[in-house]
C-alpha cells in the first residue's frame, strides 16, 4: 500500500506484486485443498479428540457425507482427493513461508499489518466495529490503510489459521510423526489434530465468506482490479 503515487485519475498503487501473486495462488490452492479435503473427510465423516478414534469410539461430531458439488472429485474417490490435497498442500505451505519472509523483508508486515499505536485502544476498536456494522467504509487517504478489524483478521489468518492448518495436516502423517514427534504432542494426538484441521478449514471458509462480502460491499470491480493490477481508485468522501 504505497500512497505516494496517486495519478490524475485518483488511482493509487495499492497492493504489492508479492501480495497479489500470493493472493491468487492461495485462492486456487485453498479452493483445491478445501474441496479435496472434504472428499477425504467423506471417507470417515466422524471426528474425535485424543490419540485414537475409530468406529467403536466416541466421536464429538458425526456428519453425513458432503455432497458432490463441494468435493473434489465430485464422485467419491479417496485416492484422487488425496492426490489433489497432497499435491496442493506443500505448494501452499512453502508459498506461505516465502510470503512471510518476503513480507518481513519488504516491510509489508511492519508497515501495513502491524498494529500502530492507538489501533488497539478500546474506543478506536469500538468505532471501527460501529463503522463496519453501518457499512461505512473509509474514504480518501484513510482507505489506503488497513483498519483495525482488517489487520486483526489478516494477522489471525496469516499467523494463526494458516500455520495451524499446515501443522495439524502434518500431524496426521505417520511419517511426520516419526520425524517430528513434538507435533503430535503439541496437538494432543492425531485425532485431535484431525479435528483441529477440520475446524480450522471451516474457520478459513468463514473468513473467505466475510472477505467476499466485504469486497462486494466495498466495490467489487475496484477491489478486484487492485488485487490484479495493483492499482486502486481511492473512494471519494460522501457529500
Amino acid at each position, binding site marked *: 500500500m504505497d500512497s505516494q503515487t496517486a495519478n490524475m485519475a485518483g488511482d493509487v498503487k495499492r497492493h504489492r506484486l508479492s501480495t497479489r501473486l500470493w493472493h491468487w495462488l492461495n485462492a486456487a490452492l485453498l479452493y483445491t485443498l478445501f474441496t479435496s479435503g472434504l472428499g477425504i473427510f467423506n471417507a470417515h465423516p466422524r471426528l474425535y479428540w485424543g490419540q485414537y478414534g475409530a468406529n467403536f469410539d466416541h466421536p464429538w461430531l458425526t456428519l453425513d457425507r458432503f455432497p458432490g458439488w463441494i468435493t473434489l472429485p465430485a464422485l467419491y474417490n479417496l485416492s484422487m482427493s488425496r492426490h489433489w490435497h497432497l499435491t496442493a498442500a506443500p505448494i501452499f505451505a512453502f508459498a506461505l513461508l516465502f510470503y512471510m519472509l518476503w513480507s518481513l523483508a519488504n516491510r509489508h508486515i511492519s508497515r501495513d499489518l502491524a498494529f500502530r499505536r492507538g489501533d488497539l485502544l478500546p474506543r478506536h476498536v469500538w468505532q471501527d466495529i460501529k463503522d463496519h456494522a453501518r457499512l461505512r467504509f473509509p474514504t480518501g487517504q484513510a482507505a489506503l490503510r488497513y483498519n483495525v478489524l482488517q489487520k486483526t483478521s489478516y494477522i489471525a489468518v496469516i499467523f494463526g489459521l494458516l500455520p495451524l492448518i499446515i501443522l495439524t495436516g502434518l500431524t496426521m502423517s*505417520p511419517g511426520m510423526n516419526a520425524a517430528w514427534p513434538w507435533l503430535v504432542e503439541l496437538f494432543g494426538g492425531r485425532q485431535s489434530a484431525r479435528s483441529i484441521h477440520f475446524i480450522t478449514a471451516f474457520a478459513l471458509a468463514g473468513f473467505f465468506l466475510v472477505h467476499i462480502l466485504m469486497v462486494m460491499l466495498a466495490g467489487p470491480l475496484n477491489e478486484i482490479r487492485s488485487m490484479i493490477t495493483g492499482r486502486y481508485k481511492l473512494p471519494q468522501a460522501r457529500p
Partner: protein
Amino acid sequence: MILTRRTLLLGASAALAGCDRLGRSDTVREALFSADNFHKWAQRSLMTRDALAQEFRPDQVSPLFRANGTANPNTPAYKALWRGNFADWRLSVTGLVERPLSLSLAQLRALPHREQITRHDCVEGWSAIGKWRGVPLKTLLDGAQLSDRAHYIVFRCADDMGGGRPYYESIDLIDAFHPQTILAFALNDQPLSVANGAPLRLRVERQLGYKQAKYLMGIEAVATLAPIGGGKGGFWEDYAGYDWYAGI
C-alpha cells in the same frame, strides 16, 4: 457487477468440474501422482533412518481395535489352514536371498520378539492403538541372507481381492530393516484374529494402514516392482491409485 449467491455457486461448481476434468488428463494425473515422491523425499530427509513411530502406554490402547479391508479370506485353502489352527501354514522367504526359508508359526514364535504399542492410521482417517508382538523382519532377512541386488520386499497375502487378484504390498529396504517393522502374530496379547490378519501380518509403523499386509503367506525379495501385479507395488496402488509411499 452483481455477484449473487447463485452465480458464486455456479462458478464454484464450474471450477470443480474443471478440476475433475483436469484430474482425468494424463499429464495432470502424472503430476498429481508424483507428489508422493516429494513427500517421501521430504519425510526421509527430515527423519533419521531409524526414527521410531510413537509408542504408547498400555492404558492408551483402543478398547476395540477396528479391523478393516478383508474380514476373512474365505478361500478353501485359507479355511483349511484355519481349521488346522495354522499348524500347516508356512511363511516362505524367497526371491533374491541366498537361503530361502519356509517357517512355521511355531518356529516364528520361537524367534526373538518385539512388542510395541503403536497407532494404526487408516487412509480413511481413523486411528486405533494396539499392542503388537512379532518377529522383526530384519531377523528373517538376515537369516535368509538378502542379496545385494534386492531393493524391495514384497508381501504375498492369502486374501483374494476378486478376479484372482491376491492382496499384496511392498516396502523398500529402509522400512524393511527398521526396528519397528515386525511380522506380528499377536494383537493385545491374543493370537491374531482372522479379521486382523491371522496368522501373521506386517507392521510397518511409519506408514498408513493399507501397507500393513494381513494373512501373510510369503515374503519375496526383488530388485524391481514392475513385473509384480499391476507394477505399482501393491493391490490398492494398482487398482485404486493409492500412493506407494504411505507416510502421509
